[in-house]
């Protein structure tokens, strides 16, 4: 299961990835202030653009039951030295999340089908960032549980219509 930034059609495997629009608790944190505000929300999924979140904010996020989202498409969009700096920031953030007990997810956040990656590639991404097998499986369970929550929201919306 993956999280993407576009709506998947039935041909493209709509059941195999969640769209960001179907997750009301997903927040793109463009700066430190936005990350601070997002971390306070209950069950928030925070995607920091710079992969720098204060320890205090991580603790708040952990208390709120939220998680940090590590995006593979951010790695794809960079090249060379900038890519290596980004990966190193991700590694540091993952260590900080582990220290504070904050959850984390690994997703592509693909903007189109060409940026989507297979489960094996996401597993390798998680491993290179330093996640253990147990942590990776927890992250996968989180995404699967999100899909259930998202489906319930969709059903509710349809019933309301």
């Amino acid at each position, binding site marked *: 299961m993956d999280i993407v930034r576009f709506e998947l059609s039935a041909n493209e495997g709509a059941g195999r990835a969640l769209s960001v629009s179907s997750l009301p608790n997903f927040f793109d944190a463009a700066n430190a202030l936005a990350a601070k505000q997002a971390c306070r929300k209950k069950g928030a999924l925070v995607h920091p653009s710079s992969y720098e979140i204060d320890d205090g904010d991580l603790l708040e996020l952990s208390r709120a039951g939220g998680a940090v989202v590590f995006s*593979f498409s951010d*790695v*794809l969009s960079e090249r*060379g030295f900038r*890519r290596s700096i980004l990966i190193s920031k991700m590694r540091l953030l993952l260590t900080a999340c582990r220290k504070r007990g904050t959850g984390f997810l690994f997703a592509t956040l693909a903007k189109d089908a*060409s*940026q989507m*990656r*297979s489960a*094996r*590639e996401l*597993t*390798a*991404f998680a*491993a*290179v960032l330093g996640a253990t097998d147990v942590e990776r499986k927890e992250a996968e369970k989180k995404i699967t549980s999100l899909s259930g929550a998202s489906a319930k929201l969709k059903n509710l919306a349809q019933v309301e219509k």
Partner: protein
Amino acid sequence: MKPTERFKRRYISFSLSLEGKPPAYPEAKEIVHSHFLSFFGESGVSSLAFKLVKYDAATGAGILRCERSRTDEAILCMACLSEWKGAPARLEPLSTSGTIKRL
């Protein structure tokens, strides 16, 4: 060399496409070699024990070798290829095995 002293190998089968079509062998070799070189650097590639073992230009399928403990890094490197000289490219890992025969 004694078997205990040899590096342990993993073979990864992949599918390579450039603009939706499999490239010819010389271009495929250049793509894979230069991509791994830019990702790992010269020292990294040497410690990775990287080798392009096989490539079929008709289907775009191939096999590469890496050191067993660095399979995840090799797969991440392959996943990071999204374009080549401005054209969309994809190096998708399909499966891994300790022997070529089982791929």
